[in-house]
């Protein structure tokens, strides 16, 4: 930051003090969430490797009941969604909301800890139940039915202070798109989660409609929780690091409201051609494709904001992860459109492509943005800098290649599988050809999760060291390019 006059220097210092106070007020809960989330991410990726291996070698590690694919796969995804995704998301949301609205977290820190502990205990018990026979087979709601009230309450405990902060700092003229998204996530998640759980766990019997509601829930969680948190984080960090304002306020608004209006309709297209009344999957297909609009608008806005500052993508770990995450958003949108419309959708329906969509949205898009946020937030909370450029770089490249491999192989496997299912030549064949054809892709998926596990080991160790306060004692941030190491970085100064 260029300092011209003594008065502005004082202002800057006052500003820094204010920021430090806000950071200090949320430090405990945010670090607690990040650290636990990172452990769950580790667990999820290891389960991901195992589940992928089980797809081509079902008797790997024996025919033990706990590790059959039908139980492993939900455990893997629930750990990813509830253990890592929502937990890390809450951490990022809390910090950004506090910073962006300029509000300290005044009281209630202990109840946040309690909620965090309950969240983690509930997820642990839920996963153990899935593996030991409590699996409900409702996608992303596989945990037994007594878990969800705990998770919902814990979430609300975190959402409440954020809503208060937002309300206090809401200025009609000062337009804050990142907090819009984060408030939206605070608001949509409980609504979706409560609706889905009441319908699926409390109502007596909904038959095929329950399956439709389940699909709606999964899409709602992706589009109205994971996407807003990641977009909000990108809207906060891209301008922050590049030092440029968000390119267009109108595009931001358009992107936000079109997502808000469209996303709630999607989901049931998963069962296109199924028993649901035809308009339900049809409207899902329509909005699923139309979501290309907010996706394109947000992508364009991020692109325009980053334009001309691409050298910073190479140096700043935060911007690099956020940039890649934002790049995965259009990819997510295109894959969703491919899965949703009736011409390509029927080929990809009931294939591995749906897994590819879940991974690209939760891992490629959401998690990469959250990693970016974590690389920015943690040094400010712990007071020390990231230890090693190499670890960050490893984390970035192994994750990138791993996710890209999973998404590409899942999609290609989906096309292959869908083609085999709809191949007239195979009308009287058993599933031999199909399972043989899918095998190489599943081996690739296992290897890709292996790469990601490798990257996460280092991320976890790095994070643990940072939280333990063993980071680098330095005023210069850890940047990725050694040649630029001594040039001071405007945004990080």
């Amino acid at each position, binding site marked *: 930051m260029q300092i011209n006059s003594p008065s502005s220097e004082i202002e800057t210092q006052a500003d820094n003090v204010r920021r430090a106070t806000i950071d200090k007020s949320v430090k405990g809960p945010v670090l607690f969430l990040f650290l636990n989330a990172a452990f769950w991410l580790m667990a999820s990726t290891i389960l991901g490797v195992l589940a992928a291996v089980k*797809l*081509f*070698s*079902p008797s790997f590690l024996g*025919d*033990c*009941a706990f590790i*059959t694919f*039908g*139980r492993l*796969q*939900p455990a893997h995804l629930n750990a990813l969604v509830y253990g890592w995704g929502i937990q890390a998301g809450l951490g990022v949301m809390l910090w950004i909301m506090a910073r962006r609205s300029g509000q300290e977290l005044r009281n209630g820190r202990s109840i946040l800890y309690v909620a965090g502990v309950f969240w983690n205990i509930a997820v642990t018990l839920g996963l153990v139940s899935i593996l030991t026979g*409590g*699996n*409900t*087979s*409702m*996608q992303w709601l*596989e945990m037994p039915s007594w878990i969800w009230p705990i998770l919902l309450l814990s979430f609300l405990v975190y959402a409440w202070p954020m809503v208060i902060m937002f309300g206090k700092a*809401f200025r009609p003229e000062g337009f804050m798109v990142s907090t819009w998204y984060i408030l*939206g996530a605070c*608001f*949509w998640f409980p609504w979706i989660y409560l*609706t889905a759980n009441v*319908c*699926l766990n409390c109502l*007596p019997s*909904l*038959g*095929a*409609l329950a*399956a439709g*509601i389940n699909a709606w829930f999964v899409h709602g969680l992706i589009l*109205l929780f994971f996407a807003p948190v990641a977009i909000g984080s990108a809207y906060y960090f891209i301008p922050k690091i590049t030092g440029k304002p968000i390119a267009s306020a109108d595009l931001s608004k358009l992107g936000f*409201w079109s997502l*808000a209006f469209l996303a*709630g*309709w999607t989901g049931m297209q998963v*069962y*296109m*051609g*199924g*028993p649901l009344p035809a308009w*339900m999957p049809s*409207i899902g297909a329509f909005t699923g494709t139309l979501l290309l609009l907010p996706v394109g608008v947000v992508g364009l806005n991020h692109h325009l904001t980053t334009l001309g500052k691409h050298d910073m993508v190479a140096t700043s770990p935060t911007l690099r992860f956020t940039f890649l995450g934002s790049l995965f958003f259009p990819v997510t949108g295109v894959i969703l459109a491919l899965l949703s419309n009736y011409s390509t959708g*029927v080929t990809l329906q*009931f*294939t*591995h492509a*749906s897994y590819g969509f879940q991974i690209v949205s939760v891992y490629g898009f959401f998690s990469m943005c959250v990693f970016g946020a974590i690389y920015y937030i943690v040094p400010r909370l712990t007071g020390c800098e990231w230890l090693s450029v190499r670890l960050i770089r490893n984390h970035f490249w192994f994750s990138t290649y791993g996710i890209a491999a999973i998404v590409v192989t899942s999609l290609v496997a989906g096309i292959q599988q869908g083609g085999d*299912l*709809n*191949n*007239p030549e195979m*009308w*009287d064949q058993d*599933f*031999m050809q199909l*399972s*043989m054809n899918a095998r190489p892709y599943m081996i690739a998926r296992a290897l890709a999760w292996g790469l990601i596990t490798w990257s996460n080991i280092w991320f976890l160790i790095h994070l643990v060291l940072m939280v333990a306060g063993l980071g680098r004692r330095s005023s210069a941030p850890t940047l990725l390019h050694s040649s630029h190491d001594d040039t001071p970085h405007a945004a990080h100064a």
Partner: protein
Amino acid sequence: MSNFRTFILGLITSFGLPWLLLIVIPVINYQELSFLPYDKDRDGVEGYYPPATVHGQGQLIYIREGCVQCHTQMIRPTQLALDGWKKGWGQDQEPRPVAPVRSNTLRDYFGEKYAPLGLVRSGPDLANYGWRAPDRSVIHQMLYAPQSLHDWSNMPAYKHLYKVRKQQGPNSQSAIMVANREDAQQEIVPTAEAEALVDYLLSLKKDYLVPGTAVATNASAKK
């Protein structure tokens, strides 16, 4: 957005609309769903549609084991996919059926708390498995050691649903034969859960005649 209240109102409207129309109203309407009577003159059968529901106890095992991860229970209409023409996927087990298997309706899953429509079709669709199911003991063998039937199968073995015990006296009535059994002195006996799961699989018949559609089916059958 002029103020906080308008913003919140915008959020509520934008999401409340699909929530109400796509979830709440259909859920309320679903409660009205009931059995449909067959008309003897029109349909040629008596009773109610669907004539039978699935074996509920076994479905709990199906759900617990996460079978939905690889098996669907949904036949898509022929204008979308070839499910209906797959050999043996419907009631008509002829090698060359005259009509495709019909796609499913909401009532086919009547009475199920949660219809396991499935996520990925890594294994065959099971919507109408009951019609094509082999002998009980073969299904047990399929569950106990899938690779003993098809060496290419990537289905997990559900060994925990079976008990291996020392043979006492003559063969137990319920014991299943598995081709590659190591020790002739041992017998493999299905637990109650395995029996329930097989009962469930045998009860999967989701292409019963829909009232009012019999004429079309008969006409095409006579061709």
